């Protein structure tokens, strides 16, 4: 191959590289951090209050019509984790003398990775409440949301021929049309029977709901009242993965109860910075197409044999 051809080859390779690199290379393309909507609904769970009664698990089943998970033993409803039948679960952590219950459900991220993965916004963040909601009508069942979620929350009905994604939607279906939350004892609440079932049933107030702002203030109040009681005197979810609308207070290390150590940036940030960098306004692809078509036309006019017959 002639040296000029080789140079030309690496020029095209470099052009492709530049297109792919636009995102990470230019800070101008960096994606703005997402903010929670002002009235974002969330939950606050406190491990020191939870007694592991699992009333919330049962209430969640009733509210969402999910079948009991009796696959381990037909006599008991015993989900081992969130799964295709279980949107909310209580797990137990034990290590040495330390023990803690922990509640798991969707974290309702401020910048949800699952929704960023979803092709047709089948998973989307409600602009008012910030609840990460699922609409199966646009779901092809690709399960990219499951790959993307850093909390491993969205579940899939693997045992069904007509499956759906299953995840907590903060009982949004229970809210009657036109009903707005009103302040009750410092927290924004729906009328009884319309709020998240797990929060309404909890006998210890271990999980409560309200706006993210109210819950963050409450969590900080609890930390200030008894410094040292909570792990790192810190609220999990204030900054993790760009912030979550479900917040945790824990007396044991967060990573021991299934809350991973995550950077304060939203998970989609890198992928979207790269993607939007390359495809902003579709300019780079159109330009590349123009260059390729022009080169091929020029080659053809130069008498090169791009067609089958002429080559022999």
């Amino acid at each position, binding site marked *: *191959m002639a040296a000029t051809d*080789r140079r*030309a080859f*690496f020029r*095209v*390779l470099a052009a492709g590289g530049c*297109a*792919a690199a636009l995102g*990470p290379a230019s800070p101008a393309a960096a994606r703005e951090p997402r903010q929670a909507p002002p009235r974002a609904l969330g939950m606050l769970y406190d491990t020191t209050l939870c007694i592991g009664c699992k009333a919330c698990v049962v209430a969640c089943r009733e509210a969402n019509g999910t079948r009991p998970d009796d696959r381990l033993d037909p006599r008991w409803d015993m989900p081992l984790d*969130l*799964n295709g039948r279980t949107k909310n679960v209580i797990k137990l952590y034990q290590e040495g003398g330390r023990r803690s219950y922990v509640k798991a459900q969707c974290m309702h991220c401020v910048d949800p*990775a699952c*929704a*960023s*993965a*979803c*092709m*047709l916004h089948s998973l989307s963040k409600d602009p008012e409440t910030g609840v990460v909601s699922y609409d199966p009508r*646009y*779901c*092809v*069942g*690709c*399960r990219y949301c*499951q*790959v993307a979620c*850093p909390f*491993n929350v969205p*579940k*899939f*009905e*693997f*045992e*069904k*021929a*007509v*499956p759906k994604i299953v995840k907590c939607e903060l009982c949004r279906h229970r809210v009657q049309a036109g009903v707005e939350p009103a302040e009750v004892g410092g927290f924004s609440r729906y009328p009884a029977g319309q709020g998240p079932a797990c929060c309404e049933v909890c006998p210890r107030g271990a999980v409560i709901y309200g706006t993210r702002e109210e819950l963050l203030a409450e969590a900080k109040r609890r930390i200030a009242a008894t410094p040292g009681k909570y792990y790192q005197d810190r609220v999990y979810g204030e900054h993790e993965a760009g912030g979550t609308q479900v917040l945790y207070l824990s007396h044991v290390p967060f990573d021991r109860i299934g809350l*991973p150590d995550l950077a304060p940036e939203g*998970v989609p940030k890198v*992928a979207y*910075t*790269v*993607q939007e960098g390359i*495809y902003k306004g579709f300019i780079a*692809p159109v330009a*590349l*197409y123009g260059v*390729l*078509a022009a080169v*091929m036309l020029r*080659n*053809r006019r130069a008498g*090169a*044999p*791009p*067609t*089958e*017959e002429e*080559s*022999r």
Partner: protein
Amino acid sequence: MTSHAHSFAHAPVGGPLMTRPMRILLAFVALGAAAMVWRFAAGLGAVSNLSDGYPWGIWIAFDVVVGTALGCGGYAVALLVYVLNRGHYHPLVRPAVLTSLLGYGLAVLAVAIDLGRPWELWKVPVFFWRWSGSPQLEVALCVAAYVLVLLVEFTPAILEKIAVGAPAGRRARAERWLARLDRSLPFVLALGLLLPTMHQSSLGTMMLLAGPRLDPLWFTPWLPFLFLVSALVMGYGIVVLEATFSASAFGRRRETPMLARLSKVAAGVALFWVLFRLGDVALSGKLGLILSGLGALFLLELALHGGAAAILATAARRAQAVWQLRAGLLMILGGTLYRIDTYLVAFRPGEHWRYTPALPELAITLGIVALEVAIYLWAVKRLPILAGAPAGRQEA
């Protein structure tokens, strides 16, 4: 074929179709088809070991992510032939387009099997007002468009087949269409180069969303670029493999000198990939991780690509078919490993999740590969794909 305007450079190989290898291939296809029926009747859980921890298994990691890269022969060769080298590697183009068409077509089939709700798939191209910025959407639309482009690129073979031995009227119509296709070819081919550039890089972007759960040795904002370059390397590998196979199986003239020129570029690209990947890991301060966890796999990826480049470093080895083939196989292995690592091995959903493919899962993947080879064999025997007449027989 002296009486009309076109004398075609490609000819069907001919020969019996139902050979022993073909019967074995079809048996695998039947097995895979049975598993597929079971999958749609009973759901994904019944036939696969896919789980909420490992929602993607070999169907995505191998059939789609590796399969489309193996389908990049058409992309890699077209880039050289039409843009850079003005028709020099010409006889390689048509078989490369065929393998690309098969690789991509069957990747789409694998996606349809893997999707939980494939009946909603038509909404993806249609409901454009709901489109998100998901890198997977970009992959889906681009792959679908590229399959169409490959079909157009492949049409001349079918039209020539129609023209040969047809009555004058039909032959004239086929030749009119051939001429029309020929005029629009630069625009179609430009699309055929743009689309793989887009979706092969986006296949890398996709795993950026798995960020916190992807092993740091694989997570880098350069994933799309690494995937793009890797697709070119694998594309060259598959072209060498395909050319060697058709030479030995059908007694076609060896394209060794032509592949020698191609190998020089391929070696450069493979070496570039190694240096870039190593440099990226080093500059982001992750070199220490090589000693832990999955470091061995990372090194193996580099060794396979580097080994291919080393083999093709001397002109003497580049000129020999056997070394070309060895290097091509190393490239395919290296690229396959990189892709499976990124999508499966380096994806860490949590300690208690495990994944090894189930038997029916493997049966479907094997069935798809067997179908691909079977269609390839049928096509080269019945359609004008391969250039040059077999030894001892002149073109009719």
